[in-house]
């Protein structure tokens, strides 16, 4: 099974995306998902990275991305950032990963 591949994007790739990444790692491990590829970029680079590298999910903490037509499911990372509603958030991410056959 190929491992889940998730992009996290924020304005400068130095604060909120990193915070989200550390909370996401912890939450995925708690769900028994140990192998994953999490990458960080600036939102300005997200569209191109998604098109080229085709991650399963993108998590964004700067701006709203519906109108940007990113070619994968995009979620707001605010729950991860504030540590509020993390379980419900992870449910949504895991549902996408299941659909894509990345987690059992």
């Amino acid at each position, binding site marked *: 099974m190929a491992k889940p591949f998730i992009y996290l994007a*924020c*304005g*400068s790739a*130095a*604060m*909120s995306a*990193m*915070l989200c990444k*550390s*909370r996401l790692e912890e939450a995925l491990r708690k769900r028994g998902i140990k192998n994953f590829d999490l990458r960080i970029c600036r*939102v300005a680079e997200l569209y191109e990275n998604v098109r080229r590298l085709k991650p399963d999910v993108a998590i964004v*903490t*700067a*701006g*709203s991305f519906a109108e940007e037509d990113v070619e994968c499911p995009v979620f*707001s990372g*605010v729950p991860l*950032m*504030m*540590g*509020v509603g993390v379980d419900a958030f992870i449910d949504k991410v895991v549902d996408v990963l299941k659909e894509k056959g990345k987690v059992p």
Partner: protein
Amino acid sequence: MPQTIDVKILKVESEKRPEILKEMGDYLYDSGYTKETFTNAVIEREKKYPTGLEIPSAVNVALPHADIEHVKKQALLIAVPNGPVKFKRMDAPDKDVNVELILLPVIKNPEGYVKFLSKLTLFIQKKEFLELVRGKKYSAIAAAIREECLEPLMRNPT
């Protein structure tokens, strides 16, 4: 070696977002934490990527910041404005949120700072902290953040 993050609080007099950010930026520059370019970088970044967060169970907060190239020394600058201040929402930039607490992270080493932010984002939602913010207990706010979010990292840096 645990990194240093100076936790500071500033009494701001302005009532509008850009003016408050300027006051905070000027303080940081005058105190030697940032380069001349920092204040403008924060104000411009906030326009492009707003950082207001609506937190239904706590006070709404904004986390304005700038890229590491504008920073000399790490800090967290806190401001509790006299009244609610309009910011745009991080997750919905076309919407306003009335912010009661502004936290300005001054970041030089993102990997290390994230551990502090991780504790900070949880602590600011605690009831005991909300009471300090609502009561505008300035020195207690900074002390509580130092004690709850920074000191545990100094004792146990992993």
